[in-house]
């Protein structure tokens, strides 16, 4: 705790780096996952190979995966972010496909029969109905990314992992504590924020709270 209080600006800077890595990862991961999920929903046969591949990627230890990527992207944050994007795909894509395919077919047929264009159908019907499931996936992905980003420090990416690795190397228990506590608090905060969003995005929320 002492280290935290004595070096607020250093910890603050590392926290900022950590948060940056996590949010960039999440944004890219979502941008990649949405089209993949749409393709799978459209062409069912893609589901098995794509989900299989993403599942296999998820089982590779994170350290190993980043090491694989260093020759391609260099010893920097990019390799770490690419690895985290790959990791979170399985979570995001699965949640999106499950959410999309659980929309009542009668609802989709009604929207078509009433004369909505595919675009209107997407924004008026599909997006609001998958949103809670999707945000739930994003929440888990964000927490996973927060955890993995800790390793980023080993690859020159900075972040709160810096405190942990420095602490281990120089045998400074207070640094290790500072790093662990901050990562834990960050993960909790992100989880709470997205949980709140998830509840808010629930389509009939107003009905239930009335």
């Amino acid at each position: 705790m002492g280290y935290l209080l004595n070096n607020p600006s250093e910890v603050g800077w590392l926290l900022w780096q950590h948060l940056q890595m996590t949010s960039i990862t999440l944004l890219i991961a979502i941008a990649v996952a949405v089209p993949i999920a749409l393709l799978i929903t459209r062409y069912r046969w893609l589901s098995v190979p794509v989900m299989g591949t993403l599942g296999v990627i998820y089982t590779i230890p994170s350290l190993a995966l980043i090491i694989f990527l260093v020759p391609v992207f260099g010893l920097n944050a990019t390799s770490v972010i690419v690895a985290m994007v790959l990791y979170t795909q399985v979570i995001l894509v699965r949640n999106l496909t499950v959410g999309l395919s659980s929309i009542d077919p009668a609802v989709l047929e009604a929207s078509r029969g009433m004369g909505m264009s595919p675009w209107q159908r997407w924004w008026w019907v599909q997006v609001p109905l998958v949103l809670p499931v999707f945000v739930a996936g994003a929440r888990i992905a964000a927490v996973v990314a927060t955890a993995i980003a800790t390793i980023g420090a080993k690859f020159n990416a900075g972040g709160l992992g810096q405190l942990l690795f420095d602490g281990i190397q120089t045998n400074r228990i207070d640094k290790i504590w500072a790093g662990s506590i901050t990562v834990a608090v960050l993960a909790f905060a992100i989880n709470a924020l997205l949980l709140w969003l998830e509840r808010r995005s629930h389509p009939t929320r107003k009905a239930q709270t009335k």
Partner: protein
Amino acid sequence: MHTGDHIPCSEFLNLSCNAMGSIQFDQVTLEFSGMSRPAVNQVSCEVASGELVVILGPSGCGKTTLLKMVNRLYEPTSGRIYIDGQDIKRLKPTKLRQKIGYVIQQSGLFPHMTVADNVAVVPKLLKWPNPRIQARVDELLQLVKLPPTEYRDRYPAQLSGGQQQRVGIARALAGDPAYMLMDEPFGAIDAITRTALQTEILRLQQQLQKTILFVSHDVDEALRLGDRILVMNAGQIVQFDTPFNLLTQPADPFVHELLGADDMVRQLGLLTVNSAMMALPDNYQNGSKPTVNAVDNLRDALSLILKTGAPELSVVDQDKPVGLLTLEHIRSYAAEANR
């Protein structure tokens, strides 16, 4: 393509060209890949403006398929469909669908929208100004007997099945379409609510005069609602006629059996009291006879006779006695109708 938008339908069909509000099928066939026979096979017929036609037939005979070709959810393999005398292939599907109300069995209400927002969808697609949309929503909820103050802001999950179907009907009527397609709208609803909703449809139809295609596989529903009934089997039209003619002159044993044409009580449901009653005798004293309305059907009259044990019923028209009805009148009239 040089002849303009309107192809005179009489060129294709031997039909009158009073086309506004009508639906015409010309040799319409749809083959799904991998099926041994077409789901809809060479269907030609015309539904007149303001007519309620029930499509009746056993499961899998192509009722839904025929219906969905009208709003182009399915495209026919061959043949043409005209609406207002216009080939629907020439219309943009979204524009066509906005002109046709569509009600399905599972209601298909949007679970994330309130009742009001559900009803407002088509007016929004048609880009009506907001005050007009809100007024329309209230008007329609009133029409389907769901007081707006109570139901406007509810979500579909907070409604009973019957209420959901009412919202589904209001939603389909919202853009004031001249046409309605209804695919077993009351299929999943208990018998009592179903009868109430059928009454509602008859009332609405009297008021609004839409051209309606109504799919059903319930014979009593078809007889009750249909101005005419389109009987289908294995993708083809077997007979297209009024309920009464179907019962009394079924085209073949299939229709005969499907409609239960032997069922005399069923036939009585289609005959009105005033056609069978006898005029009032001069020295008429009403006494305390049970009364029926002149426009009630003979089936109801019969059940009243059986229930009360009265030998005669007094027939009234707007509370004034106009005739008498006995069991013998009913029997002889039904026998005559059957010849």
